[in-house]
């Protein structure tokens, strides 16, 4: 792809290998699909999975390293700045994105086949989006940030709509699209204002400029807040959340999983980068704002989730609520050192990815046999399909933060720490109440797995394909592993 390098910017291909591979793979699969006979097109999915593993492998040599590329030289007082940087944060998120995408790919294999979704285009769009997420995690200027964010989003619109004969999918895509573009526009306006005041687009330069600036406070406050909007949409924070339940419900379940995990993680890393690297000096402004957003988000998400009867919709609201938890550390950033809140958010995003994908994996599987995918369809699943039921129960316990789902508990502990340490007590209290609220619907669902099915409804019973089994296995294994050794979540390099 990147053939047009000039003498000015040297490119560190090792650093950008992962997004490069994924993007290349996307193109390759699109072409391959066109040339393969229809009967053998399924192989593209497997290739996609393998490619993701390969891309992940390229991250390994980067561990512990700090690399920067696409840099501009400094001049005078202005320091050099780079557009692409690989550090711990980047690596963690890239790994997360790749792993999450891998699970989504595995889950999609059967979905693509059964729903007659054009496979080549599906894999291409998915991987294109993934490459955007990978870049996003590494971008250090707002141009790259915005463009990467759009690369994550745009293919996702198409992915949601890929069941083209399904009006619900189209409707879902349209809602996602409109909310997305409006949020993007708002964000761009905000970023433009920030650029106007600071004259900089590289995050660290913005931070420097903000540190120095003084008289243009109000416009900057506006700029910073508007800029949050685009990422708020991605992470489905209230009031940017409206698309999530409708879109999740209309989209193919693996795509919903992708939106709720990979795309959301991308949103979080973008938000984290923007806020803690770029707008760090304004933490006293955006901190409380995010605290309010976090409180609203978790409350609205949990309240709405309470009344859900369909699995995917419930997960949608639950992931809104979970976003609220993830925002909590950022909400506490107004006090104390900004960087310190990052590990908490990162840890929670990681944990959330594992447990949410675990839930989605089983929901996808059940959805193949019970398209309505209501919670009642899970009644008595423990009897017919003990393994998947147990996996789902564990994932739900994790999401609830209740033993044996220690992963979720530890994640919540980590997140709690920020407001507790920084004296944002009210947020901690709101979170505690919300955790309690959340417990109810997760457990109500989990309980259904164990209760006696009504005589008229038989719980689904199925053979699990290798790909679904692998997906469930990976998520369950990760959830179990992190439950026993949660330190890994916190021990990401440098911390």
């Amino acid at each position, binding site marked *: *792809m*990147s053939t*047009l*390098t*000039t003498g*000015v*910017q040297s*490119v560190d291909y090792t650093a950008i290998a992962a997004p490069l591979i994924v*993007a290349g793979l*996307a*193109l390759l699969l*699109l072409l391959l699909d066109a040339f393969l006979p229809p009967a053998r097109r399924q192989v593209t999915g497997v290739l996609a999975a393998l490619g993701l593993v390969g891309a992940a492998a390229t991250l390994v040599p980067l561990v512990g390293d700090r690399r920067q590329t*696409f840099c*501009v030289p400094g001049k005078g007082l202005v320091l050099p700045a780079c*557009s*692409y940087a690989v550090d711990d944060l980047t690596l963690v998120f890239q790994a997360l994105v790749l792993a999450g995408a891998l699970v989504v790919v595995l889950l999609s294999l059967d979905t693509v086949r059964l*729903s*007659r*979704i*054009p496979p080549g*285009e599906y894999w*291409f*769009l998915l991987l*294109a*989006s993934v*490459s*955007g997420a990978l*870049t996003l995690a590494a*971008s250090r*200027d707002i*141009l*790259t940030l*915005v*463009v*990467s964010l*759009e*690369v994550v989003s*745009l*293919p996702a*619109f*198409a992915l949601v*709509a*890929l*069941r*083209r*004969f399904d009006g619900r999918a189209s409707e879902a895509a349209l809602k996602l699209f409109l909310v997305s573009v409006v949020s993007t526009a708002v964000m761009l*306006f905000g970023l433009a*204002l920030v650029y*106007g*005041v600071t004259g900089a687009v590289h995050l660290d330069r913005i931070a420097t400029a903000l540190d120095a600036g003084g*008289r*243009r406070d*109000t*416009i900057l*406050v*506006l700029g910073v807040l508007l800029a949050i909007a685009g990422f708020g949409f991605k992470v489905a924070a209230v009031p940017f959340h409206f698309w999530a339940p409708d879109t999740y419900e209309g989209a193919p379940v693996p795509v919903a999983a992708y939106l709720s995990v990979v795309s959301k993680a991308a949103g979080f890393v973008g938000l984290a980068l923007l806020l803690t690297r770029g707008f760090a000096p304004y933490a006293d402004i955006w901190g409380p704002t995010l605290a309010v957003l976090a409180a609203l988000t978790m409350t609205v998400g949990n309240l709405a989730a309470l009344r859900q009867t369909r699995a995917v919709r419930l997960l949608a609201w639950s992931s809104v609520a979970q976003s609220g938890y993830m925002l909590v550390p950022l909400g506490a950033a107004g006090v104390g050192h900004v960087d310190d809140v990052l590990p908490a958010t990162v840890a929670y995003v990681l944990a959330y990815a594992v447990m949410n994908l675990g839930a989605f994996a089983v929901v996808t599987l059940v959805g193949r046999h019970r398209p309505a995918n209501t919670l009642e369809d899970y009644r008595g699943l423990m009897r017919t399909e003990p393994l998947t039921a147990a996996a789902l129960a564990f994932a739900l316990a994790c999401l609830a933060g209740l033993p044996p789902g220690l992963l979720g508990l530890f994640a919540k502990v980590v997140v709690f720490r920020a407001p507790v340490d920084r004296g944002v007590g009210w947020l901690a209290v709101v979170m505690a109440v919300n955790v309690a609220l959340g417990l109810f619907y997760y457990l109500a669902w989990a309980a259904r797995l164990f209760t006696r099915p009504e005589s008229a409804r038989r719980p689904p019973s199925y053979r699990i394909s290798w790909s679904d089994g692998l997906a469930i296995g990976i998520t369950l294994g990760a959830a179990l592993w992190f439950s026993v050794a949660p330190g890994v979540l916190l021990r990401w390099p440098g911390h």
Partner: protein
Amino acid sequence: MNVVEVLFGLLGVVALGSALLVVTTRQLVHAALWLVVALGAIAGCYLLLSAEFVAWVQVLIYVGAVVVLLLFGLMLTRAPIGVSTDLDGPPLQKVAAAVVALGLTALLGVASVEAFRGDHIGLAHTGRGSTAATGSAVFRVWVLPFEVLSVLLLAALVGAIVLSRRDIGEDDR
């Protein structure tokens, strides 16, 4: 007040006026045409701001491609020529829209005035907006987003095509 400023002011009024018509007209096709006017006026503004390349791109891509696309879209959705009454939401929605829009505009406007009052753009340095300068910047400094943008465009292209193709999936209903 020099000529550039006067021209800019006029073009700005045109842009704002036609934009207002875009969002208020009762004829679908008119909206598209007013959009052309607005976008054109904005292109003129770019020129006055000495951003030549941007202005041309604006004309080419927006007026040339985007609006044409939108017109196609209108036709494909069998938009009626002439006055339609169902383009706007209910009155209450319009009120809400106006309140939100005015609120945001007022806030941003006041804050902008407060922030940028007295600042002037020195337009003497022509050449910063030239094709050469801009192109050089893109390829020297902004290679990365540009490359990423290529993925974006490709994805949008593929997405648009796959969604528009009618040859697959119909039988799955």
